[in-house]
């Protein structure tokens, strides 16, 4: 077996041990003997401010049996973080390989496998679950519900995810076993006929795992819609429903139609691979049918990921601008508009596939139209900042970084939506740069911002502000180096998905392309340093961070922007401490007042 595969396996294994250790340590599992399900616990199992004493068993049983939306939110979050780390390691290996033009450290096949796993992991195992984490924990709090509409379905939906991930990654686990199963090399789009003809059963395992995670996402979406429709508190109407819940509602509506269709397409692909059906064969529906079905799911998937993150930014940004969200109604309308339009743009991924020119033109029009609701949002965010009392806390920095990256990621999308420009750029790194500005520059940024913003509620502690700000600046600089270099490499027509770039020098500007690739790798390393700081900060602060005793750690009350979730937090604090024990700490630049050893 090649040494690089051994090393990779060891790396993945180490990552899992690390991640598991992280979960085990932060949740105080060690303080109780596991598997003692019958014993009542006086405190909330290590949770600093639990309000529900003795409603849950102790030890690991609590986590396996919980139907509490907050616990399930933490489970989703942990799962998402583990996936994020693996997806990050995968792309880091690829970026290091691409530092030189030749194939140096890993084989092109391994490169393809990592490319596939990075995409699938980040979109299905990190993106969707991390949003479910925020939504599970906070939507019930924000709408004044006791819990999700269906707490047990909520738990089932989560517990379907780990076996899904094991199947999706199975091809990597089997490398040291020397079986004839390898990681899938289909790319995340799984285009036929390639994905039908690869004999590697690792592809089948991945398809099965994807179907399972799709079932999980669909169950979650149904649950969120039912919750937001029927479980709102008496004083929460449609008119004053918060923006995050609006985006979750829209996202769930998209999931409702996108994921089941992907499920059918995956089953059809499995049947084609194993039972000789003709769904995507030339004599049947043909390869183009796969592209239609996949992108009918795949483009809405982008909005499944980005809409809730836009909701988070719309929720957090005003808190630190000292002003209400400007044009709230129009932000909601633009969310709904994007939700509807998302199903009408899929063929812009297929302009180069030889589809009917009239179809191309109409899809170009709808794709360009998406720029309008997107711009409505952007201008509303900017206008919210206008004349505001802007406080540059870490969550706020991530929100502003989000908007800045959205301008770049969004406008490059407008160019790509235009058919003639698309012909030139679609198979190049320009597309990679465009959508990574969105998925990393926006989705991950909003996720980080929300983690920092809600850290006091979830953990009862405050994070380290210096590390957090370092994390932001490293991420912001790293993202813009990496992905701007990709846009430029796209103008040089560097084709995407390639494991090497040893082109004919008379045909390609090799010096420039090499330089840009090296910049991308350096940028990726900067992002990595920032992410490691984040991980260290979160783990350390969860255990040792200063305890938050101020129910208003972000000082939002004075602006009349105190959110429902922090009102809930205040009740929890009062219930735990039996009264006001607020101690004013230093007037922190981060707006966070903390006690102790920060």
């Amino acid at each position, binding site marked *: 077996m090649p040494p690089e595969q051994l090393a990779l396996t060891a790396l993945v294994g180490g990552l899992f041990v690390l991640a598991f250790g992280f979960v085990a340590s932060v949740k105080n599992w060690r303080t109780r003997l596991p598997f003692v399900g019958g014993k009542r616990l006086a405190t909330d199992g290590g949770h600093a401010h639990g309000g529900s004493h003795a409603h849950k068993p102790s030890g690991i049983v609590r986590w396996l049996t919980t139907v509490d939306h907050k616990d399930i939110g933490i489970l989703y979050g942990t799962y998402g973080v583990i996936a994020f780390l693996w997806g990050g390691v995968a792309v880091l290996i690829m970026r290091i390989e691409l530092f030189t033009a030749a194939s140096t450290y890993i084989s092109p096949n391994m490169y393809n496998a990592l490319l596939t796993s990075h995409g699938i992991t980040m979109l299905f195992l990190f993106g969707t679950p991390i949003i479910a984490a925020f939504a599970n924990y906070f939507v019930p709090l924000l709408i004044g519900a006791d819990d999700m509409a*269906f707490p*047990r379905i909520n738990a*089932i939906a989560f517990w379907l995810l780990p*076996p899904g991930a094991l199947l999706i990654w199975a091809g990597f686990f089997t490398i040291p076993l020397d079986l004839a199963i390898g990681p899938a090399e289909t790319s995340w789009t799984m285009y036929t006929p390639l994905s039908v003809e690869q004999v590697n059963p690792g592809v089948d395992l991945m398809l099965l795992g994807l179907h399972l995670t799709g079932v999980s996402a*669909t169950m979650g979406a149904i649950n969120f*819609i039912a919750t937001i429709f029927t479980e709102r508190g008496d004083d929460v109407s449609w008119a004053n429903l918060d923006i995050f819940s609006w985006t979750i509602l829209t996202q769930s509506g998209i999931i409702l139609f996108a994921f089941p*269709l992907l499920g*059918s397409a995956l089953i059809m692909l499995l049947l084609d691979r194993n039972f000789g059906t003709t*769904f995507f064969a030339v004599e049947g529906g043909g390869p183009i049918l796969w592209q239609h*079905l996949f992108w009918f799911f795949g483009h809405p998937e982008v909005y499944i990921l980005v809409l809730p993150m836009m909701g988070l930014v719309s929720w957090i940004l005003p808190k630190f601008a000292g002003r209400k969200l400007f044009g709230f109604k129009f932000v909601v309308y633009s969310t709904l508009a994007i939700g509807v339009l998302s199903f009408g743009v899929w063929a812009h991924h297929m302009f180069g596939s030889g589809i009917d020119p009239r179809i191309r033109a109409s899809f170009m029009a709808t794709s360009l139209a998406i720029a309008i609701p997107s711009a409505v949002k952007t201008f509303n965010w900017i206008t919210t900042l206008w004349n505001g009392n802007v406080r540059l806390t870490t969550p706020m920095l991530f929100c502003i970084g989000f908007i800045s990256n959205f301008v770049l990621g969004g406008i490059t999308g407008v160019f790509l939506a235009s058919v003639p420009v698309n012909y030139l750029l679609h198979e190049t790194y320009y597309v990679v740069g465009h959508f990574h500005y969105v998925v990393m520059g926006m989705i991950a940024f909003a996720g980080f911002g929300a983690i920092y913003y809600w850290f006091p509620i979830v953990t009862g502690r405050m994070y380290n502000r210096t590390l957090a700000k370092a994390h932001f600046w490293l991420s912001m600089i790293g993202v813009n180096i990496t992905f701007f270099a990709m846009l430029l490499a796209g103008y040089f027509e560097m084709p995407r998905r390639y494991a090497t770039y040893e082109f004919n020098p008379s045909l390609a500007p090799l010096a420039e392309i090499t330089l840009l690739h090296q910049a991308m790798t350096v940028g990726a390393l900067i992002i990595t340093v920032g992410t490691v700081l984040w991980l260290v900060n979160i783990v350390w602060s969860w255990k040792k961070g200063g305890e938050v005793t101020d129910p208003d750690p972000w000082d939002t009350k004075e602006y009349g922007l105190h959110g429902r979730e922090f009102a809930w937090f205040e009740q929890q604090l009062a219930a735990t401490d039996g009264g006001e024990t607020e101690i004013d700490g230093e007037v922190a630049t981060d707006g966070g007042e903390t006690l102790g050893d920060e």
Partner: protein
Amino acid sequence: MSVETDDGHGHGDSHHLPAVEDWPKGFGEASWWPFIAALGGGGFYVGAALFILGRGTEPMLNPMIGPLVFVLSTVAFLTGLYGWLYHAFIVDFWEGEADSYGFPLKLTMLLFLGTEVATFGGGFVYYFFVRAGAWENLPAIVTEGEVLSTLVIANTLVLIASSVTMHYAHHALLKGDRKRFVRLLGTTFGLGLVFLAGQVYEYYEFIFHYGFGITDGAYGTAFYGLTGLHGLHVALGAVLLAIVFVRALYGHYSPEKHVSISTVSMYWHFVDVVWVFLVVVLYAGAIV
């Protein structure tokens, strides 16, 4: 997968506990049922994966391992499902506030049916691609027009009749005519089984007498893909009908408490409508 879901609503106090009855007992926010059900649910996929690894000329493992895992997963899945539904609905049926909780459950069924539109949509889009495309290499049953047989028409009438009996069963329950309700519900279940039997017989006829299987060209794939998907849905519907029928026999339901009759009825009508559409485009649409 059944979306007739848990209750977890309303025990009066400010923060209600969703899982009071569930095992492990005495907590209120803990239940093993979701974990067990998900273990079974995930096990289906692991079983399918092992089945694929056990196929081919050089199978990587014993071909029986996959089906074995599948069967064990079914046991786990049904155990979890049973415990969950029992503790959510049955144990507290008359005391719980099932009726005021009807709207969320009906909405949920409606949302689930929305996902089903997308699930069936994938298969139908394939068929439309084929039908509107080359439309070549057709099997004999299509070229000779035998796909739309008397059997299919009779089977369609059976399924439509079952929708009618389902509707009147619900109607009888609402009017308090319990005997008629149980009788019509049982009839619906019986007609559902007849339909499934007819479907199996049709497959038998096509495969063994006409030699028309799933690998016989683009139409074979569409035919068995779509009718198979629909058949699975009817089978699930029959399971749901069996559950509510047994519950009705044990005295459940009243004119005030009939939510699961409503949701099962919605599902059954949906499956019926899909079948009619399917007969029109896949059977009749193939020969016109």
